[in-house]
C-alpha cells in the first residue's frame, strides 16, 4: 500500500487523517483512490478537467512527479507520496 501524506490545510477533507494508504499502480490511480475515499478533497486537488491544480505539487519520495513520469509515475508498495500545497502564512 502506498502512503499519501496529507498536508495540514487539506486534512479537514480527510477527517483529520495525516496519512492515507491506497492501493495503486501509479500516481493517477493513487489520486483517484484518494478522491473516491474523500470526494470533498477531489476539487481541492483537481481542476474541472481532472488535471492536478497548479498550486499543488505531488511528490514521490523527495522527487517532483513532473520530472519523473507525471501522473503515470509508477508507485511501489512502500512509496511515500506527498501533496504539497502553496501556503502563504507568516505575518498575520
Amino acid at each position, binding site marked *: 500500500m502506498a502512503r499519501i*501524506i496529507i*498536508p*495540514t*490545510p487539506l486534512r479537514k477533507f480527510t477527517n483529520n487523517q*495525516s496519512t492515507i494508504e491506497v492501493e495503486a499502480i501509479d500516481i493517477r490511480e493513487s489520486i483517484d483512490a484518494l478522491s473516491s475515499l474523500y470526494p470533498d478533497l477531489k476539487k*481541492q486537488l483537481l481542476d474541472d478537467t481532472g488535471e492536478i*491544480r*497548479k*498550486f499543488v*505539487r505531488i*511528490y514521490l519520495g*523527495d*522527487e*517532483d512527479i*513532473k*520530472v519523473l513520469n507525471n501522473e503515470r509515475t509508477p508507485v511501489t508498495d512502500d512509496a511515500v507520496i*506527498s501533496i*504539497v*500545497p*502553496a*501556503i*502563504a*502564512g*507568516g*505575518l*498575520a
Partner: protein
Amino acid sequence: MTSIKFSKEELERYSRHLIIPEFNIEGQRRLKGAKVLVVGSGGLGSPVLLYLTAAGVGTIGIIDFDVVDETNLQRQVLFTVDDIGKPKSTSAINRLKGLNPHVRFIEHNTRLTSDNALEILSEYDIVADGTDNFPTRYLVNDASVILQKPNVYASIFRFEGQVSVFNYTDKDGNTGPNYRDLFPTPPPPGLVPSCAEGGVLGVLPGIIGSLQANEVIKVITGIGEPLNGRLFLFDALTFETRTLKVHKDPEQPQIVKLIDYEIFCGLGGQDEEAVDVKEVTVQELENLKDRGSDFQLIDVREPYEYEIANLSGTLIPLAEIEQHVDQIASDKQVVVHCRSGVRSAQAIQTLEKSFGFTNLYNLKGGILAYAEEIDNSLAKY
C-alpha cells in the same frame, strides 16, 4: 572584506561565532557587510529579526505597514503589550536596537507594492520573505528575480511550515529555482485560508522563522549548503520532516516586470465584482435589532469560532449551507455574517445562484466590525 573592522565590544559579543573554525572572523565580516530586507515583522519576522540582529547582520531593513494588536502577541515575540496600537516596524526597531546597538536598521513603514518593491529591494543583498498573503509572496519573488537577489522563503499554516531559498546563485554562477517554479499560480481566493482565518500554532513561526534566519546566515557567509533547489517541510503535529527537490520549470515565462498581484491572485479587479452581494453595515444591523424588526441572522462560521464570540445568530457553517437551506427564511430579510464578511458573501452567492434567494444581506466587515463599532465586549480573533 578585510576593510570591515570590529570594536572590542563587537569582538566580545560575537566571540562564539569567531571561535567556530568554519565561521571565524571572515563569516562575521560577511554578516556585518550584509544588507538584509525582512518583509513582514510578524510571526516569522520576529524570530528572523531577533536572530539576525543578535548574529550581527550589519544592515537590516524592516518593511511592514501594520500596527501591533492583541492577537499578534500569541506568537510575534518581538512585541509586548506596550506596543499595542503602534506601528510594527517602529516597535520592532526599538526592541532590536536594545538587543544589538551595532546594527543599522532601516524602517519601511509602508506596504510593499509593485510601485515601490524594486526601489526598496535594490538597496539590499538578500530578502527574507515572511508575509502572510499570496499577492505579496509573488511580488517579493518577482522583484527578487528581476533584481537577482536570493529570496529566503518561509511560510506557515496551522501546524505546518515550509522553508526554501529561491533564486540563489551558486559559486559557479548558476541560479536556482524561484517560487513560481514551485507554484506557478496561486490558489483561488478562499480555497486556502490565511493564518487569520485558519489559525497557527504560536510556536510554529518561532521554529520555522529560526530555520529561515539560519538560511539567511548561510547565504551571507557561504557556509554549508543553502536550501537552494530544495523545499523543507515540517509538520509540528506528527514531527515529520521532509526535504523535497525543487526544479526550474522550463515552461515558466521569464519574469521581466512586476504586475498587479491582487488581480493575479484573483483579488480585486473583475473578481471583486463577482462577489458583489447586497450588504448591511453593523450599524444597520443594530438598528434592525433596536426596532424589533422581523429578520433572521445566519452565522456561517465554524462552531469553535462561535464559541469565541457570537451575535446569537443561527449557526450554519459555510460548508453545510446547502444541506441546511431549509433553515433559511425566504419571506423576510436575512442577514448573513462570518468573521470578516468573505465567507458570508460566498454563502449568499451560493444561495442566490442555486436556490434563488433574493432576501439575503451580507454583514459588512462581519463580527469583527460589530465588535469594533457596536459591542466592545466581544472578543476579536
